[in-house]
């Protein structure tokens, strides 16, 4: 077992809260979290709904291993139809909230409709109720968590909420839990805001006690934790340097997108990466990095806790930002830094804090600023319009934009629409560095060819977390492939996408896959959930989930034409580095990918593929 076996269904329009048994057939076919929540969504909802309308649904879901001693078993996923892309949105978060929900006795919470006034959901073990959130509306994520803990007189309550970005429908608003862990991408926070749902506060004291074979589960999870501890990436690299260890590596191989992808190497990379975070500041002699931090159950602990220099222009007279808080991960440091040509580490951390505080995806936000700065450079946008001199590299402009975007003030309203809508409005849609409307993360597909295909075919728009072939192409995990060639990448991308879907649906963190493969996942699922979770079955579940998501997107109106990259990456060769002279070889890879997927030329599932996967 190890699923709680119960789900909560909340109709916000009617104000009802109902308990339902979990559909165990679906649990066996789609595991949990990402897969299972998506299954509920695609079965219950028309794929063509307007994402910000009451017809959209939004689900918070844990996996069967969430809330167990399996390393990293603390994760949950928020699944909905995304407003940034119009595709399936599926954002995963760590921290402690997911385990708390599971320990309260629930596998997932499904929200339908729209509340007439702001509400929050309070769950205390078996009891759940909608409560008035008038006093929370307008509050930041940080204030919301503090207020709820105080009001509920329980410092141990865990909160998943939105800030101003979600309330103001920033299309890449995040859902944030435990102050600085986020279901960050695709605008799941905007959907939450559209429903007048401010927060979910949970206290779970029941725990997870229905492991199928507890003794074997403990033996296996200890064995698997040792693999993580002994691995160079999960045992040393990530705890010591965090994901920021990648900044210099990706820059050296010429795949660090810079200034809205005009360049693919950043001269300021050394100022914003792991080394810079560990170097004492000249001003106060303190290292920006205070310590690392784990999420629930995680024996890797890649999280960063960081401070901003109190004397930095961005935080002058703002003591609320002087303490330690969630620090820069690689993707955020890239998006707020290299993507805009900004090399001021303190400014990046200030913008990062604002993203956490107001609930905003730093990747899409930072990448959109990259587009704004390019339009400014071209003279399309002016200082008068923007309220600031927005040349590439301006830390002041970055800080200013971070302040106005979540609040929806001035030009911030347009930045909050994402780069696709913004660049289209100003007549330069080609300058939007997006796939399906979602901004790229920190890897240039000219220098890491597999990632181009992974981005183009990602079910939630451009994303590194749907198929991280960087592991193979750059780090040699599980085998080294050449990042500059197209050959073999369709199979590689498919393998990564399917395995990731399985990991995401289990309740474990995808970062374990630097050391673990699918067999390690199956080894832990079997004693927890039942012997039917063999390697073959788990692999098939991953592939089934991927195809289910794809099928939803097709029904939402996406076609093979949307499996593409911005013109810049297909026609403007990289200027420097090992990939110099190369463009993305996507046209070469895509047809082969459809073939290995069992899709037709339009990118639709063939009948035999549906049959094989039981879709």
């Amino acid at each position, binding site marked *: 077992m190890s699923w709680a076996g119960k789900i909560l269904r909340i109709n916000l329009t009617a104000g009802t809260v109902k308990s339902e048994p979990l559909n165990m057939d679906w649990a066996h076919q789609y595991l949990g979290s990402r897969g299972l929540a998506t299954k509920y969504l695609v079965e219950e909802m028309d794929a063509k709904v307007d994402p910000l309308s009451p017809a959209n649904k939004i689900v918070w879901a844990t996996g069967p291993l969430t*809330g*167990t*001693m399996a*390393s990293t078993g603390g994760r949950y996923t928020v699944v909905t139809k995304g407003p940034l892309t119009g595709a399936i949105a599926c954002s995963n978060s760590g921290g*402690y909230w997911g*385990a708390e929900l599971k*320990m309260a006795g629930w596998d997932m919470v499904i929200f339908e409709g729209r509340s007439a006034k702001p509400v929050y959901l309070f769950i205390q073990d078996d009891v759940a109720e909608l409560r008035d959130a008038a006093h929370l509306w307008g509050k930041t994520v940080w204030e919301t968590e503090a207020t709820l803990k105080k009001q509920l007189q329980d410092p*141990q309550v865990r909160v998943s909420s939105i800030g101003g970005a979600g309330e103001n429908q920033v299309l890449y608003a995040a859902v944030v839990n435990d*102050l600085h862990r986020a279901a960050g991408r695709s605008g799941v926070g905007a959907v939450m805001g559209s429903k007048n749902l401010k927060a979910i506060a949970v206290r*779970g*004291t*029941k*725990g*997870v*006690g229905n492991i199928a074979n*507890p003794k074997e589960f*403990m033996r296996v999870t200890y064995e698997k*934790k040792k693999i993580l*501890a002994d691995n160079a990436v999960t045992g040393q690299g990530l*705890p010591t340097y965090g994901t920021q260890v990648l900044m210099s590596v990706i820059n050296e191989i010429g795949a660090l997108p810079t200034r809205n992808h005009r360049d693919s190497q950043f001269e300021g990379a050394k100022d914003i990466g792991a080394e810079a975070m560990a170097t004492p500041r000249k001003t106060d002699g303190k290292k920006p990095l*205070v*310590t*690392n*931090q*784990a*999420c*629930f*159950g*995680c*024996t890797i*602990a890649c999280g960063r*806790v960081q401070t901003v220099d109190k004397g930095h222009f961005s935080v002058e007279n703002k003591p609320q930002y002087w*303490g*330690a*808080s969630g620090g820069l991960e690689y993707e955020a440091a890239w998006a707020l830094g290299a993507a805009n040509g900004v090399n001021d580490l303190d400014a990046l951390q200030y913008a990062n804090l604002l993203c956490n505080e107001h609930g905003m995806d730093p990747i899409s936000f930072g990448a959109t600023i990259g587009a704004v700065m390019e339009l400014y450079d071209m003279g399309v946008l002016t200082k008068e319009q923007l309220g600031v001199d927005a040349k590439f590299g301006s830390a002041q402009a970055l800080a200013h934009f971070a302040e106005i975007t979540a609040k929806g003030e001035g030009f911030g309203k347009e930045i909050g629409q994402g780069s696709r809508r913004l660049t289209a409005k100003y007549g330069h849609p080609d300058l939007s560095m997006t796939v399906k409307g979602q901004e790229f993360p920190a890897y240039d597909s000219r220098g890491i060819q597999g990632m181009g295909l992974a981005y183009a075919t990602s079910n939630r728009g451009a994303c590194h977390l749907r198929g991280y072939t960087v592991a193979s192409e750059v780090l040699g995990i599980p085998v080294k492939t050449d990042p500059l060639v197209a050959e073999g990448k369709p199979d590689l991308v498919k393998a990564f996408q399917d395995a990731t879907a399985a990991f995401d649906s289990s309740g474990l963190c995808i970062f374990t896959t630097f050391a673990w493969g699918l067999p390690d996942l199956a080894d832990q699922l079997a004693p927890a959930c039942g012997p039917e979770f063999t390697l073959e079955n788990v692999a098939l579940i991953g592939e089934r989930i991927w195809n289910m998501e794809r099928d939803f997107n097709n029904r939402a109106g996406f076609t093979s034409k949307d499996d593409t990259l911005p013109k810049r990456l297909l026609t403007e060769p990289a200027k420097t580095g090992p990939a110099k002279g190369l463009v993305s070889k996507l046209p070469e890879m895509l047809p082969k990918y459809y073939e290995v997927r069992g899709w037709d030329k339009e990118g639709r599932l063939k009948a035999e593929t549906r049959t094989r996967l039981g879709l």
Partner: protein
Amino acid sequence: MQKSLHIDPEKCTGCLQCEMACSFENYATFAPARSRIKVFDFHHTGRKVPYTCTQCDEAWCLHACPVEAITLDMLTGAKVVNETTCVGCKVCTIACPFGTVNYVQETGKVQKCDLCGGAPACAEACPTGAITYIDANWTGLNKMAAWADKLGNQPAAA
């Protein structure tokens, strides 16, 4: 030789493996809500600090108990709650200066760390060495070694 739980907050990452191990050992359930060791997260300094019973020699809880439900385990030095004797009066929870003995509504008894009979599950589960189970007389040994290293083992000292 008695051993003590030794806590080094510097090494704690806040993963709560210790809390799950504790609840699993005692209740066969992963439930930090029922753990006898708790990790406190001080957000503005980034510090995470595990805290549990230190097994006082002259234990306030043991002396306060009116029914002598808390007794000394001679082998481990742990002060152990005998659940069949405990009447749930909670006087021990008032007497303990450190808050590490607590009432459990579900059982109507109190609970505290009993060192798992000499093999503490929290220490075994801790992935970073923030919680260790070591010679009770030498919990300062590692700190002494570090200072000794600084005093006499650095090039400048030679």
